């Protein structure tokens, strides 16, 4: 006889492991990738799914309790704000003259705003 609580626990743990794994990958990417723009790829995309996975795991654990509803809200706000933050960091970096890494093949933005 399998109880509902057990299934809930399994789903919640699974989502938590997936989320934590993706956050870990994001940190590895932050160290391994060569320049600020490539690092932003790692932190925004992977950070989003990682944090969202952790939030979903909370929801799976407690259901629609106050803390679960808050978790959903936080997840949605992360989904909305992470791209905006990445965009502002990338733009500020480029305008301050942070160059692209030497593997880069093309830079059409630099041609436009060359100061």
């Amino acid at each position, binding site marked *: 006889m399998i109880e509902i609580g057990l299934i809930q626990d399994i789903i919640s743990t699974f989502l938590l492991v997936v989320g934590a794994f*993706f956050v870990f*990958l994001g940190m*590895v*990417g932050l160290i*391994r*990738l*060569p*320049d600020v*723009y*490539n690092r*932003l*790829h*790692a932190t*925004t*995309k*992977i950070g*989003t*799914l990682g944090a969202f996975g952790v939030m979903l795991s909370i929801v799976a654990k407690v259901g629609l*309790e*106050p*803390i679960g*509803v*808050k978790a*959903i*809200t936080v997840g949605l706000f992360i*989904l*909305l704000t*992470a*791209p*905006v933050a*990445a*965009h502002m960091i*990338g*733009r500020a970096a*480029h305008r301050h003259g942070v160059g*692209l*890494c030497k*593997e*880069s*093949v*093309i*830079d*059409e*933005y*630099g041609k*436009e*705003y060359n100061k």
Partner: protein
Amino acid sequence: MKRYILYSMFLGLIWCFVHGTVNFNNFLIGALLGPIVIRPFRSLYGFENKISYQKVIRKIPKLMRYFYVLFIEIIKANIMVAKIILQPKMDIKPGIIAVPIRTKTNTGITAIANTITLTPGTLTIDVSDNKEVLYVHAIDASDPQGLCDSIRDDLEEYVLEAFE
């Protein structure tokens, strides 16, 4: 005034979600706090544009399809970046390319910029001053034309349908 009430109700709902319990008291507190938030940022809420409820309701299926596509793309993006990170030898060809866009409204441009950032291998850096070109950093920029085409055909269609 009508606009204030509409947005206040929306903010009241958000307040309920942030608080955690959805009930009438919380909704009322949020709705009463709403105008205080809206007033200083009036210019951001587009008070001069007209909204028609019919148009908003007709957009709902398209919005749902857009979010479905976005969800699939986010999963794909994560797997792709994870693969790049876990490769023992880093061979990437990053670069910034200019992508022409067809959307004209501010909402549409915001939506497409955020969508590009959340989808595989691309990150929006800036919008040009005349709002016609997005500068996109791609983790694999060996084929700029192909990337422009894929953004135009795969993503912009949905954004145009859902937000314009």
